[in-house]
């Protein structure tokens, strides 16, 4: 139904990083600058620390050892130098504390900003997006992908910035100290970089394979655990075990391979670092003894030996993060892609207004709730504003619709529902019943034709106001975590407790709610798992009732309830339907019998229409359905 996913191009790694940084920059500009400065300060101090070793050995210790008379004055001087250095150290430590602490706020704040943005964007997406993507797919943006993003932003990114600064500071310090040895260090380091890159690319490959295997195994466990009872009933345990072992062994193979490369990364980088450190010492010694022009003292060598470590360490750290960063960027890419899906468009301008109607039927807009509504229609060309009373009159004029351009689902539908009428749709799965209701509340837009609501083309009505005037009860009742009262109040957020209870009474739900130990304050968890299907349905009806809309859509609202329970629900439904325009879609024909008009849909066409008695007399498709000759699903 939706090709947007396929046509979108995966953004490049740099674009994704750029987008993450733009989030940081937008939310924490000052703090981010402070962080950068603090990181640089602490990096410089760390480099000075290493350089200080050279000064210490070459300028103080060596002369003092060579000439004991210098001990006293030099020792005094050294004390002062150490105090100065200690002060710098303090600055370095404070800078480090500042940036790690600020980074905690920045990284968590950025994550929150991205998460909030993502949720808000999701709320704005059209229904078509949710119909064409599985919940699992969308959920994985929030779970797996956000998890990797969390690690990227809160761990990898600060560490990589830090390492980068360390590498640069050390590099500069080395060149300041001795350019020849600096070149030697760079030369030796390049081998290490090449080697670790090789390992990283290998481990990334196996890591991806591991993810695939894990996903496959997870899918298997999910499917088979859901059907665990069937497995037991069919004595199928051994078979399931064999199938599981096969997947499990494959996963083990891939993860062992991937882990091998990751696990040798650290010892390899470490020991190669040690090798470099040895060679630096040796080459330093050679320079010191054979090439005096380079002015290499023992202090320089000790300093360089330490520089080699300080230089290679961050490189090892970065390469260890790299596998992870590659995967995390892919996840971030998916999140940003999801966020860039076009939101639901709404060009409607006709709104719903609270009004008072005077005795001579003059309508005036007021700013408080009156229980009376009117469409406020502003005419651009004349500059006049019309008020049309909300009645619930709906007309389809030659409506055609398809979820995709290629396949039309509804063909030239004409129908009308006068205020207070009950219109029923009957037909097989895929006949287009639910599609019709999807069009009335504009979850989808029609391809051609017109739908009028109280005479106004619904394109012109603002979606929020259009939906405010329509109530809907669906087959799958979705309740939300919260109390029963919260769930009923969902229909009208400012409803008083009394209003909610009145709605529950209307829906015939008050009885069972009173029986619950905590009554209306009973907490519902997991979508109301603790309630029966029928009870959930009654709550959904009460929720719609409290909103008190002039038009109701009941989409298979009673199909999964047994006939005894349905009678209970039916009473609530009947009360709800009174004085409203109602569209009913039902599986059980018993639900639709007393409708004012019944439409039989087949492959997107209305093939029969009339009252129950008329249709029975016709002995057509409805008659066959009614007598059970056809399968209805």
């Amino acid at each position, binding site marked *: 139904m939706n090709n947007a996913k396929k046509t979108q191009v995966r953004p490049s790694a740099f674009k994704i990083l750029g987008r993450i940084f733009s989030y940081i920059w937008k939310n924490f500009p000052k703090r981010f600058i402070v962080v950068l400065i603090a990181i640089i300060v602490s990096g410089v101090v760390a480099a000075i620390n290493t350089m200080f070793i050279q000064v210490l050995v070459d300028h103080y210790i060596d002369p003092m*050892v060579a000439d004991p008379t210098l001990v006293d004055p030099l020792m005094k001087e050294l004390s002062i130098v150490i105090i100065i250095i200690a002060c710098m150290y*303090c600055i370095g430590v404070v800078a480090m504390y500042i940036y790690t602490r600020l980074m905690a706020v920045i990284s968590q704040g950025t994550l929150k900003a991205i998460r909030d943005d993502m*949720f808000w964007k999701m*709320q704005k997406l059209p229904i078509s997006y949710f119909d064409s993507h599985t919940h699992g797919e969308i*959920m994985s943006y929030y779970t797996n992908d956000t998890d990797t993003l969390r690690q990227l932003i809160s761990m990898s990114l600060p560490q990589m910035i830090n390492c980068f600064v360390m590498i640069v500071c050390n590099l500069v310090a080395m060149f300041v100290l001795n350019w020849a040895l600096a070149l030697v260090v760079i030369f030796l380091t390049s081998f290490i970089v090449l080697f670790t890159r090789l390992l990283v690319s290998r481990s990334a490959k196996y890591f991806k394979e591991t993810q695939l295997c894990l996903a496959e195994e997870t899918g298997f466990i999910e499917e088979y655990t859901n059907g665990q009872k069937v497995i037991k009933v069919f004595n199928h345990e051994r078979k399931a075990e064999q199938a599981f072992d096969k997947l499990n062994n494959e996963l083990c193979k891939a993860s062992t391979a991937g882990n091998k490369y990751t*696990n040798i990364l650290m010892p390899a980088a470490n020991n190669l670092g040690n090798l470099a450190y040895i060679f630096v010492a040796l080459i330093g010694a050679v320079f010191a003894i054979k090439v005096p022009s380079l002015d290499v003292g023992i202090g320089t060598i000790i300093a360089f030996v330490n520089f080699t470590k300080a230089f290679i360490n961050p490189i090892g750290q970065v390469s260890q993060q790299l596998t992870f960063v590659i995967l995390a960027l892919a996840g971030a890419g998916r999140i940003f892609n999801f966020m860039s899906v076009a939101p639901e468009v709404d060009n409607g301008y006709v709104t719903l207004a609270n009004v008072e109607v005077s005795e001579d039927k003059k309508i005036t807009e007021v700013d408080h709730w009156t229980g009376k509504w009117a469409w406020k229609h502003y005419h651009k060309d004349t500059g006049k504003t019309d008020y049309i009373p909300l009645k619930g009159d709906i007309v389809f004029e030659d409506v055609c619709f398809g979820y995709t351009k290629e396949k039309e689902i509804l063909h030239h539908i004409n129908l009308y529902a006068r205020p207070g009428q009950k219109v029923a749709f009957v037909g097989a799965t895929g006949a287009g019943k639910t599609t019709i209701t999807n069009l009335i*509340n504009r979850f989808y837009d029609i391809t051609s034709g017109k739908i009028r609501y109280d005479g106004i083309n619904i394109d012109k009505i603002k979606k929020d106001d259009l939906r405010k005037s329509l109530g809907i009860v669906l087959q799958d009742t979705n309740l939300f975590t919260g109390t029963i009262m919260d769930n009923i109040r969902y229909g009208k957020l400012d409803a008083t407790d009394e209003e909610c209870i009145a709605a529950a009474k209307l829906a015939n739900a008050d009885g069972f709610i009173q029986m619950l130990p905590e009554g209306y304050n009973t907490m519902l968890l997991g979508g109301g798992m603790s309630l029966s299907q029928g009870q959930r349905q009654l709550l959904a009806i009460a929720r719609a009732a409290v909103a008190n809309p002039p038009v109701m859509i009941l989409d298979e609202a009673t199909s999964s309830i047994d006939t005894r329970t349905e009678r209970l629900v039916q009473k609530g439904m009947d009360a709800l339907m009174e004085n409203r325009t109602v569209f009913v879609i039902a599986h059980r024909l018993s639900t639709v019998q007393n409708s004012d008009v019944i439409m039989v849909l087949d492959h997107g066409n209305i093939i029969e229409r009339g009252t129950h008695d008329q249709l029975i007399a016709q002995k057509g498709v409805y008659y066959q359905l009614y007598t059970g000759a056809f399968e209805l699903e």
Partner: protein
Amino acid sequence: MDIIKTLAKSIREYKKQSILTMIIVFFEVILETLVPFVMSILLDQGLKKNDLNLCFYLTIVLVVMTVICFIAGVEAGFMASTAACGLTKNLRHDLYYKLQSYSFKNIDKFSSASIVTRITTDCTNVQNAYLMIIRTAIRAPIMLVLALILTFISSWIIGLIYLGIAILLGGALIFIIFKAHPYFHKGVTTYDWLNGVVQENLQGMRVVKSFNREEFENQKFNKISTTIYKLFSTGEKISAFNSPFVQFAIYAIMVVLSYFGSRLIVDPNTTMTTGVLSSLISYAWMVLNTLIMISMIFVTIIIASSSAERIYEMLVEQSDITSKQNPVIEVKNGNVEFRHVNFAYSAKASKLVLNDINFKVKEGEVVGILGGTGSSKTSLVNLIARLYDVTSGEVLVGDVNVKDYDLAALRDKIAVVLQKNTLFSGTIKDNLRWGDENATDEEMIEACKLAQADSFIEQFPDKYDTYIEQGGNNVSGGQKQRLCIARALLKKPKVLILDDSTSAVDTRTDALIREAFREKIPNTTKFIVAQRITSIQDADKIIVLDDGKIDDMGTHEELLARNKIYQEVYYTQNNKGGDNNE
């Protein structure tokens, strides 16, 4: 302790690699720690005395040491991966096999989502911890101790200072972890809550949009995401002390070394030299690095411990239904009898789900079971295949108590078509073979004809090789039910139980299925649980259940004449007509 013992049982064939890893790491660490020591000799004896030959000679020693370390490190890395991934594989294997031994009661206890997490994420956490334990947990303490010893040899004053700093810093790092961890832990839990909100929104998006509740939901989400932000950032702010502490320790050591070090070198009465000073700096790094590693081990183990607990929970769960010793392995006939059966799902429940159920059914009879939602129809039929054990009383199949049978033998002869049924991804044939893995094509077609499934299967382009998607989502509800019945028929059962298995099938097809049963498998005892009177009205016996008790039992005519509940259901369905009229 029990947890570790139970989990350790899964190491099995990877014991060798685990122990070898530790041994290799042990020697590797010793060699690595000695490198700065040799280096100090190179600087003092070679460089200071302009002895280039000694320099070269010592360099070769150092290179050999490092190369050995390199090889050992790589080898240990390989083996550790094999051992850790192997352990995980075995753990997953053990968990899954354990799951297969579970009874329905055990299955009800764990949600399928929690089982998935235990077998996947929790096992991965344990894998990471194990990897840490066999490598880093050996490496870090040894390196710490050795580095301290070597420092003490060079200078006991500096050694003492290192020891003091190590204790202080180590204490501080671990203190920080224990301070910060509760925040992270709570953050992760809140995270699940947040995902719950997203899930609820995804499922109820139509409701959200119909009621214009986008903004309302957004506020709900923001509130939780703010909580998460606060928890995590508080935790991280506490952890933010970590690296400055370490850095501070390094700088403190540098200050101490440069002052005392110089004094000691200058003092002719000590053996301190410049080379030794350089090795002391290396040891300082080693001490601090190992402290960081140790704190990381703590974090990993804390994370893994709750995972380990969850895995343990599943591993020690004992199935409450097992075959007894020397079981009966043949079900002689299809007679079924209930004798004073009481049943409750939990021993603690105050109310019985089934209360004093008595009835007797002869082979080949058809029994209808009727009752409203919550009248325990499903519970009753589940006892026949011993999917649950009775609380008291006896259930007999083939005149033998079901507890005396071998479980597999019993369930082989009783086919249950469950109310919430599942088809698995695979072809139709794959699914049918669940009933009998050696079934021939003819047998499969025969079973499908009985279940009235053959006609629609033949209309699929790939016929019996049509691929069924996960959960059977590409066939309609009625088709799915008929496939499930066919699958059950292939078992050639002595007792067939249909638990509301034709609710989505139209009445005509439903009647055809029952007619086929009557003609083709007359000797199979049939239990039919149904909402529709038409599905059971021609049964030999109809049991009317109400609130866990048998309200009445008899034929359609008898019940229609005397039973109130039956009459009520009958008249509701017939007056309101619709899908239950023939």
